[in-house]
């Protein structure tokens, strides 16, 4: 997540919606505490001045590799009118410079099967929580570390697709694996960060990620030259459906599944799980974006429009004959990343101090301060709400007069004091009227 400083007006819109309270306004500009950021992209969406961006790769970058594979996220298909067939979209990727394409939806097909198997196991923690959305996984690490064991230990479709795509490219070209660029066409920065700091597996196999909004124009321009005539392998509608909230559940065909999207609501549901409720639920699909990945912060279309189009494609109304030939011969264990996977660690970033006694002291300062603050949660102090300001004060990164109301109180008290002091001037200094003459 990056800030374009010139654009930021310090308007506090972003800090108000950050689910982990990772943003503060300091010196009139928004600042993100990286360790708390879960890359949900909420701040990108909420900034009226477009001052927040995600660092993604661009088409230029693929030139560093002799052979490049594009991995389009299924949400890409929802960005274009329904008369643009998926074949055409895939071809346009070739047109703009990729040597081959591999649908992430195909990875989703494989992952769906693996999850269905996993859910049959009697020994797993229920409800099992989907780990496909990296922002949700990070939210669990930061806010619900006690639920880490509930996360499904199967890599996300994009990782799985990358492994297969790279293998296939190696076989096809004879190049060494590291000479093959595998690029994810992504709806969100969360997946971008996964590339830089991978979650489950030791190292990510993806070479880079290009935001959908970054490549959108190039694809549009390429369409006239694509006739959809190339015979490209295609994922099933179920795999494609992963782009929609609820798509994962229907692909996995999980019974007793709960679907929740939008980070605030995800937070609420996970809170219920943490309280030991929802034990009878088998599977929870959590997606950080409203509507699912089609609502990703790096998408272009309105999510409602995208949702309609995706639904059309999933229902098979488009290209009825291009359906579901999952013709990949794969070693499941290897592509699903069972061996490479690293345990997902808790990230206790909410704690105020390494030392428990000192942390307790700080909480006490916080609670005391909070009682004195006006409780308006206006954000003018640069912290998202009074509680967060109290926390910042306890941490020594803010002071009570950062609060406008507190400042005004103080100014008023000072003014009163000044008047009092002025009245108390020693008599010889008080000019008597008539002294002048």
């Amino acid at each position: 997540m990056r800030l374009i400083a010139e654009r930021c007006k310090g308007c506090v819109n972003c800090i108000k919606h950050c689910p982990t309270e990772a943003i503060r306004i300091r010196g009139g500009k928004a600042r993100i505490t990286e360790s708390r950021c879960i890359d949900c992209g909420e701040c990108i969406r909420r900034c009226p001045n477009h001052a927040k961006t995600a660092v993604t790769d661009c088409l230029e970058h693929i030139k560093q590799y002799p052979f490049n594979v594009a991995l389009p996220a299924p949400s890409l298909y929802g960005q274009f009118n329904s008369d643009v067939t998926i074949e055409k979209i895939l071809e346009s990727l070739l047109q703009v410079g990729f040597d081959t394409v591999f649908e992430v939806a195909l990875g989703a097909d494989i992952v769906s099967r693996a999850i269905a198997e996993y859910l049959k196991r009697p020994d797993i923690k229920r409800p099992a929580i989907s780990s496909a959305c990296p922002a949700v996984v990070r939210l669990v690490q930061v806010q619900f570390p006690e639920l880490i064991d509930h996360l499904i230990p199967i890599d996300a479709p994009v990782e799985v697709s990358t492994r297969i795509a790279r293998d296939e490219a190696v076989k096809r070209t004879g190049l060494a694996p590291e000479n093959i660029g595998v690029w994810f066409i992504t709806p969100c920065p969360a997946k971008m960060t996964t590339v830089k700091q991978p979650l489950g597996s030791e190292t990510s196999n993806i070479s880079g990620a290009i935001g959908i909004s970054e490549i959108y124009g190039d694809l549009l321009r390429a369409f006239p030259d694509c006739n959809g005539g190339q015979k490209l392998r295609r994922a099933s509608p179920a795999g494609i459906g992963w782009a929609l909230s609820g798509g994962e559940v229907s692909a996995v065909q999980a019974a007793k599944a709960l679907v929740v999207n939008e980070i605030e609501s995800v937070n609420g549901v996970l809170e219920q799980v943490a309280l030991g409720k929802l034990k009878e639920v088998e599977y929870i699909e959590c997606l950080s974006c409203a509507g699912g990945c089609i609502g990703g912060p790096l998408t272009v279309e309105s999510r409602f429009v995208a949702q309609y189009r995706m639904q059309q494609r999933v229902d098979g109304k488009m290209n009825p004959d291009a359906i579901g030939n999952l013709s990949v011969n794969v070693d499941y264990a290897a592509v699903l990343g069972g061996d490479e996977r690293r345990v997902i660690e808790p990230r206790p970033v909410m704690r105020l101090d390494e030392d428990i006694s000192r942390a307790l002291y700080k909480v006490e300062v916080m609670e005391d301060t909070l009682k004195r603050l006006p409780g308006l949660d206006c954000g003018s102090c640069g912290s998202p709400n009074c509680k967060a300001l109290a926390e910042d004060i306890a941490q020594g990164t803010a002071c009570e007069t950062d609060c406008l109301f507190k400042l005004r109180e103080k100014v008023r008290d000072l003014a009163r004091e000044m008047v009092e002091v002025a009245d108390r001037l020693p008599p010889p200094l008080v000019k008597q009227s008539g002294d002048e003459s």
Partner: protein
Amino acid sequence: MKADAGLSLEFTLHGADFELAGAASSKIKRILQQVGVKSDVIRRIAISSYEAEMNVIIHAYHGEMRVSIYPNRTEITIEDEGPGIPDIKLAMQEGYSTASDHIRELGFGAGMGLPNIARCCDAFEITSEVGKGTRIYMMILH
């Protein structure tokens, strides 16, 4: 705060106030996270404080919840004014509940509350007087 004084918090609970149900437990959980207590311990504290809080809201008229957080343990005392529990032994049995159908439909009062709390705590005491109220003490080591 003195060395072993701990941090104390107080909450007032109102019977039948379902809008605020769980608010106290959520706050306790957040503070424990800020203090840096281990997540599995937080989970046990959160579950037991939530169950106890809900018990007051479902069954009693009024209650006070006092929480003391020390570096090595958390203690919670809840005292309520309510109908009390005639047979504590029975109430401690899993599945036993006096909750009305209406409450059960809401997903509460499945009779798992007290046994659940007892399971989560390192020390647990309950006393009750019919017609007056109930007092629960729980302690969880960090």
